């Protein structure tokens, strides 16, 4: 495996990423958070696999590097999970926020089901009438 060109002799670790599980976006978000402590270089090995070279910005022991490798993998999986949650919930989230901040009430749901009082409906001059909701 080749050294990244930026820091050829620096201690580093490499994380293999399965791009069929972790999307490019999830990988970039992971690198974004690791960029404080590491220089992150991504190299696509092939269509399905990428190698991420993590080079510490300051000194790090072998144990630190091993820990960083594990943390990077966990973080990448978490970002992949977040993407899947978002894919499953983005529609309902948009509706939720629209409802939360709608002043007009146009997005209020009418109550489910049919509600009426047949006895009241039979009285032509009743003071109160509870009318059927069945026309919805």
């Amino acid at each position, binding site marked *: 495996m080749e050294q990244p060109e930026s820091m050829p002799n620096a201690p580093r670790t490499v994380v293999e990423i399965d791009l069929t599980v972790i999307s490019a976006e999830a990988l970039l978000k992971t690198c974004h958070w690791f960029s404080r402590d590491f220089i992150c270089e991504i190299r696509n090995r092939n269509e399905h696999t990428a190698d991420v070279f993590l080079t510490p910005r300051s000194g790090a022991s072998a144990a630190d590097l091993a820990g960083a490798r594990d943390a990077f993998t966990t973080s990448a999986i978490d970002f992949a999970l977040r993407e*899947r949650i978002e894919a499953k919930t983005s529609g309902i*989230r948009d509706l939720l926020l629209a409802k939360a901040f709608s002043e007009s009430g146009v997005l209020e749901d009418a109550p489910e089901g049919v509600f009426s009082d047949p006895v009241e409906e039979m009285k032509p001059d009743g003071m109160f009438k509870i009318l059927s909701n069945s026309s919805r």
Partner: protein
Amino acid sequence: MARSFYPPEQFAAAPAAVHLLPFRFTRLNGKELLVSEAGEFLFAPQGTVQSLVAEHIDANSELYRDLKAKHFVYDDSSSPLLDVLATKVRTKFDHICGGTKLHIFVVTLRCEHSCDYCQVSRRTPNRGEFDMSTATADRAIFMMMESPAREVTLEIQGGEPLLAFDVIQYIIPRARKLAGEKGKNLDIVVCSNLACVTDDILNYFRDEGVKVSTSLDGPAFLHNKNRPRPGHDSYEKAVEGIERSRAILGMESVAALMTTTATSLDYAVEIVDEYVRREFHSIFLRPISPYGFAVKTRHRTGYEMGRFLEFYKKGLAHILKVNRGGYRIAEVYTQILLTKILTPHGTRYVDMQSPAGEAWNVLVYNYDGVVYASDESRMLAEMNDWTFRLGNVHRDTRRTLFTGDPALRMFQASCNQALAGCSDCAFQSYCAADPVYHHATQGDMYGNRPTSGFCARNMEVIRHLFSMIEEDDRETMRILWSWVTGEPAIQEGVECA
């Protein structure tokens, strides 16, 4: 004859399909912490999120019932109760309703202190050209009362505002009169170091219902080091002023704030003990602001955020110990965050809001008529950075302040829901954006969260608080809940009436 009941599964079939509602998550202490769009949270075993995404959750489990109750999932037997959840989201964002509530009037830049960390440049005490004119005060009061908010707070500060007491006496009755005409409730707070306070001034404040907020950085050696003035007696003046103010205004009308300098970091316990000795019931462990004069003197006053977090944790631990000993004192930042975490509500604390509180919830009217988006924005202007200068009371209206380029540029970076690093963050509901801080410290209103001191502080403090919640020590949680509710902590063994 013995009777038995069928198991619960006999009464309701397991749902055919489980649907997710939006949520974010993080890992904490070997568990997964799930947070809903409304800020409700749940600690769950490792693997729960994976199971939810794969729709392999046991619908008969206790965990499933918790997930359903806290709006993380819904199924065929329940509607998503979207209106209920929407109401909770709306409640959390209550701070964006109603218009600007906090209006800061900088009545003078004059001050007799020369604190290293002071957020504005000091002027000598007798240079009247740095006082607010009556014409500027009139326009600022008018603009303040143009806010649609029914509850407004007038915060008078400086410099040292008591050096311009005549300006204060001009502003207060006019603000009261206009508030009455507009049907607004008006609170008035004067922020003063109290070195120049007199009984006449305090009697006036009492008659006008004015509250006082002062500075107390800790015990005498620390306070006097942080806050030099002629005579080296800032602490003695502050303590004397606090006692006189309490005697005339009442205990509840006098508050104190501290600022954490590099020197303060070694004295968390001593600072808390000073607040207890002075009979305060709240203390705000605040980091130094990276603005204004503090930037010039950061080699003396500045420090890494990691050191502040150690200070905060040590201070909080000691505050809890003091509470366990029977004296009630709350840490204000903890109180603010716990209110967001443990209740459906947001808070009025403008530095921790998304959309950011700048302009939206606070406006600063400088002595010269310039209007800034926040006090920190004014501090930046003292360093010749005018990015957050929204306009001028003599030339602008409330509408032009809010629709000008400076405001619109800032608003674009004001929602953490749309910021890199924040949009996926489990703590988004409890945190903020703060474009002014990120502009000041990183040269970019949007900011880079991995290297942001703001992010480091809030992530770590929130994680620390969640660790305490997860640990669920009864005594600690009783104290923390008492801070949130404002009620005294219920003592062990005392029955409720």
